[in-house]
């Protein structure tokens, strides 16, 4: 720690942030609503599950029966004075039969439950994933992907533990009851005496549980903090080395790692303290049977076989208790996870096809906004009474400061959201009257952030249009000027784009997403131009590709660059959700309004303009 012991004030440094444990670990062990909903998922496998339950019962019965068989053999065929060879052989035969039955039932129950559990998990995951394809985009915007992924993975996995073992809980419970019943019926007094140790165990557990739980939580937390710090070091290693932070980080990490070790040692102590408790209680119960039972045998009030059977049962007695405790914590976790999974499944679907939605086969490519008012949050409209038309084949630029509603307007053309008032028409149809699928055929979008999927370049370009020929893909790539760099990749079009194309430059990714839009071959193209600055060379290529892309299509472009804006037929200026100006570049410059003001400022991109400045310009424009 010497590095950190500086005579000055403590360092302004941490490694690995504290984890906020928003994911609750223990919940109620039983939630009727959750159970009922999940029963629905199990229904398809109910036959298998019923057979499994019957097998569990048979299996448990054989478990209880085995010591009884031994007892019977000792008492009736082996004890001094009553030795009987034939009977022994008969009993051994019965024993053999019980063992075979045990094997069969065991195999059946585990197999059936295991298979059903795997299927239910897949069904659950599929249900969630399918649902997420349909929920409103505003939900997706609000929700971090990481959170959804943790529902789809950790929560489903938590259920797996539970499902795979839940049926054994039934078996364990029956086994426990069975053993108690057998002990009491074999010899009530001795049974009661032996079972008197059970309350001690429960008391011990009750004292132990909260402390142990806390220790386990601490250990988990310390572990994720240490792991977080390591992940951070790996991700930020270039900065670490560039800033010579190695020593400070190491000292800080040492502290984290040490905390982690100590927390785990403490947790280990709590986990292991159970061993001597259970062993002592088992030993105590055996001693009771030996001393008390043995004396009864001597006195002739107890059969020797019963005593031996008691000893066997006692050794088995703690297994179901141990596994039921485990079950209980699985169940708690499963309930919490179940609730979280239901939350996802219950997200409402905002945009749905009308029952009589038209399958729009042909589309001439016009876009019309008629008095459109729209927002994401009630009473906070993003677009107010906006009207404009884009004729087929025309290219219109949407311009305005950040937050003016440009992106929302383009999203409405594809009916990502439903509007509050007015109408959005594509090809003369209200977008709410046609199927979303057919609307998608005619409207292609190129988003600001080019998003590529892991897979080959080829598959990325023909995304969804899986029937697109190789030639069509290559033609598209050539049209946007991406062909040359693709050819230079190690495997050309077959190169796998790892981690969403992290191995390509932003400009290259942009060109691929253009090519993708060309292959989709839609009449209407919506383009959200990238704001991130790209070097002038790529910029030039992109401008050329853009012209190619818009050829023969209707274009609605959220433009940031002057060069792009000037290439458009018409410009619509939006501010605060309202349309301010509309016209060609020359017309707007001549009008000396907001656009002219922005233009004269010489910003490379209109997004750089601050709100106050835009307001000022708008006022100036209004006054002239």
């Amino acid at each position, binding site marked *: 720690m010497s590095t950190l012991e500086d005579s000055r004030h403590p*360092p*302004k440094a*941490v490694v*690995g*942030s504290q984890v906020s444990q928003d994911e609750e670990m223990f919940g109620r062990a039983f939630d009727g609503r959750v159970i009922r909903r999940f029963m629905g998922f199990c229904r398809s496998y109910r036959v298998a599950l019923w057979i499994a339950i019957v097998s569990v019962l048979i299996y448990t019965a054989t478990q209880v029966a*085995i010591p009884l068989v031994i007892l019977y053999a000792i008492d009736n065929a082996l*004890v001094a004075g009553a*030795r009987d060879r034939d009977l*022994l052989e008969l009993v051994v035969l019965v*024993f053999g039969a019980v*063992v075979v039955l045990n094997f069969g039932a*065991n195999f059946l129950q*585990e197999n059936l439950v295991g298979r059903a559990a795997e299927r239910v998990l897949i069904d659950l995951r*599929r249900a969630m994933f*399918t649902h*997420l*394809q349909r929920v409103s*985009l505003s939900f997706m915007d609000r929700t971090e*992907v990481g959170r*959804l*992924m943790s529902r789809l993975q950790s929560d489903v996995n938590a259920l797996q533990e539970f499902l795979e073992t839940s049926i054994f809980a039934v078996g364990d419970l029956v086994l426990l009851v069975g053993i108690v019943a057998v002990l009491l019926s074999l010899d009530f007094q001795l049974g009661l005496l032996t079972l008197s140790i059970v309350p001690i165990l429960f008391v011990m557990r009750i004292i132990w549980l909260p402390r142990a739980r806390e220790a386990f939580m601490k250990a988990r937390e310390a572990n994720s903090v*240490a792991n977080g710090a*390591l992940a*951070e*070091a*790996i991700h*930020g*290693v*270039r*900065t670490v*080395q*560039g*800033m*010579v932070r190695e020593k400070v980080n190491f000292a800080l990490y*040492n502290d984290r790692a*040490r905390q982690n*070790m100590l927390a785990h*040692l403490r947790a280990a102590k709590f986990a*292991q303290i159970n061993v*001597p408790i259970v062993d002592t209680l088992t*030993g105590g119960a055996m*001693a009771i049977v*030996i*001393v008390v039972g043995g004396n009864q045998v*001597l006195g002739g009030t107890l059969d*020797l076989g019963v005593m031996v059977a008691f000893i*066997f049962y006692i*050794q088995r007695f703690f297994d179901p208790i141990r596994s039921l405790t485990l079950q209980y914590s699985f169940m708690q976790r499963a309930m919490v996870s179940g609730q979280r999974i239901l939350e996802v499944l219950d997200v409402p679907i905002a945009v749905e096809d009308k029952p009589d939605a038209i399958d729009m086969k042909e589309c001439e490519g016009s876009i019309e906004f008629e008095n459109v008012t729209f927002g994401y949050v009630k009473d906070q409209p993003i677009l107010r009474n906006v009207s404009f038309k884009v004729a087929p084949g025309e290219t219109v630029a949407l311009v305005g400061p950040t937050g003016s509603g440009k992106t929302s307007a383009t999203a409405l053309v594809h009916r990502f959201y439903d509007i509050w008032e007015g109408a959005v028409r594509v090809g003369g149809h209200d977008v709410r009257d046609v199927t979303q699928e057919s609307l*998608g055929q005619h409207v*292609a*979008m190129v*988003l600001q952030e080019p*998003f590529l999927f892991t897979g080959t370049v080829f598959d990325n370009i023909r*995304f969804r249009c*899986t029937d697109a020929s190789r030639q069509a893909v290559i033609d598209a790539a050539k049209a946007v000027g991406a062909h040359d760099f693709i050819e230079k990749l*190690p495997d050309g079009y077959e190169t796998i784009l790892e981690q969403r194309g992290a191995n390509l430059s932003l400009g290259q990714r942009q060109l691929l997403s253009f090519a*993708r839009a060309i292959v989709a071959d839609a009449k209407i193209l919506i383009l959200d131009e990238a704001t991130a600055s790209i070097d*002038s060379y*790529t910029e030039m290529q992109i401008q050329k590709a853009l012209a190619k892309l818009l050829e023969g299509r209707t274009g609605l472009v959220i433009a940031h660059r002057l060069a792009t804006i000037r290439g458009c037929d018409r410009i619509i200026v939006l501010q605060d959700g309202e349309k301010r100006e509309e016209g060609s570049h020359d017309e707007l410059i001549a009008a000396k309004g907001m656009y002219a003001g922005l233009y004269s400022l010489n910003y490379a991109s209109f997004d*750089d303009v601050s709100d106050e400045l835009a307001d000022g310009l708008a006022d100036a424009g209004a006054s002239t």
Partner: protein
Amino acid sequence: MSSTTAPTDAAPTDPIGDEGLSGTPRAQQFAEGNKLEVGILWRITRMGLAHRWRMALAAGATVAAAFFQLFIPRYVGEAVDSAQGLLGAGAASPEMAREALFAAGMMVLLFSVMRGLFTLMQNYHGEGIGHCIGYELRLAFYEQVQRLSFSFHDKVHTGDLITRGMLDLEGVRMFISTGLIRTLLLTVLIGGSAYLLMNTNLTLGLLALSFVPFVGWRSAVARLKLRWMWLLMQERLSVITRRMEENLTGIRVVRAFSAQKFELEQFETASIETLKVAIKRVTVRVANTTVMTFAFFTSMVLVLWFGGLQVVDGEITVGVLAEVLTFMMILQMPVRQIGMMVNSFARASTCGSRLFEVIDRDPRIKDQEAAPDLKLEKGVLRFEDVRFSFGADSSDTRVLDGVSFSVGPGETLGIVGPPGSGKSTIAHLVPRFYDVTGGRVTIDDQDIREVSLESLREAVSVVQQDAFLFTASIENNIAYGDPWSDGERIARANRSAQLHDYVAKLPAGYETLVGERGVSLSGGQRQRLSIARGILSDPSILVFDDSTAAVDAATERRIRMALREGQDKRATVIISHRLGSLMHANEILFVEAGRVVERGSHDALMAQGGRYHDLYRLQSRPGDDHGVEVAAPGEAS
């Protein structure tokens, strides 16, 4: 080039094909190389043995626990015989029998307690050693991650490193308790009980133990098979995960192309693949556990049969039979654990080789022996005929080919060129993130390879293209290079970077958490934070590696003005594709394909009418004549 044996040395320049570490999928790797590497296991064992006291306690407790465990059946057997009153050929008096019963009962209790206590000690210390080793390995791994050069990190996926540092480390750590200690326990238990059983009754002993080799073998085989299937399953699951994650992250693209159906089909295919493995795994698992139980009960049937016959024939007592049967109950659990033990060996061996592969690697960039600190006098950075390539140095893989320049205090050097021309590489060579392949880089005439890395990197600051934010407060992030700097200095640096006003307006101000779990900053804000971080320690040589690309032109101009203060003592290198950022530099290099093709001041280059001139035209607006983003009055020098 410094000496390393790293395979990265021979790696091609393409970053896709080479992963730097053995990167075969885990399942495949496991299937192919499923051999126990004794060297690795021995290395882990040695690490454990270093904790002498704990190891001694754990091992001693293990033997003791096994001992007490083994003698419990003996007293049970005696008790059964006493109860039957058969001790001493039926001549025992009831009192003696009663005393014997009491003694046996107490012994069972005592031995159970002792067994419990020693098992506690065994487990606690076994695990404890594991945690100690885990701690040591964590530190070693962390330190190594920080030491390994850029060339390593370029080629190794962060996800791969994280897996090694977390999961593989767990596999190694667990070896002591689940592998080593358990082996000891099982050896003593099975060996001891075999000896005792054979001594009691050879035939019955053999029968009772007949399930041991079978179950041990089955469980070992099954474990390995299951582990392999588990790894296969993880791989299949990771495909699903990737599909889901990409779908959800790119949901706008999916919807923009109405590709939901297509995506669902893809998901379904991946799901079915996973389900197949999952079901197979269930079958294998179930078949094995049930067969093992069956084997155990079968030998119990045999013991009862033959033992019963011997009792009937009067050759042995019922007590002996009871003892043997009790032994079997005791052995049932540990024998099943043979599988876990074998698994632990396999896992430790695989994980260990992956972990040590990283830990043992010699960093390519490191201090020469007894390297002196950099002696800063004026702070003149000089590149002398620098050549550089990522792989083997041949003319067609060369990233830099004979770059020379010199920049002194108060001077600014601008570097411009098309993407992939090697601009960033120049920035990376200054703090020695990579070593040159030819020529040399010097600061005040000292070759940077001959001075200590720490002193070099303290003198040089590179503001990188991609600003990495740590999950910490803004203040901590800015003070990253000097955590002891006071608030005043931090604010000053931040003011120069034009981020202060924004930060001051935040509710938590400089305490605002940023990074993965904090507020998200825009690209421009991130870059400004990174600039503040870079200038905080007032470096003698400051390199901007395209670090204002996302900052708007007006703000960038303000930053540049702010940085003029103190510039006379500092050599500045500005790499940018935006000419407005560097046209004021004393000298501008136009780099193309690793070579300097044009050099001179802005005016000279413009007069030359070459590539720089063309680029300048390209960046000025068509029709406008007042140049690139209008330099502020008096700024262009």
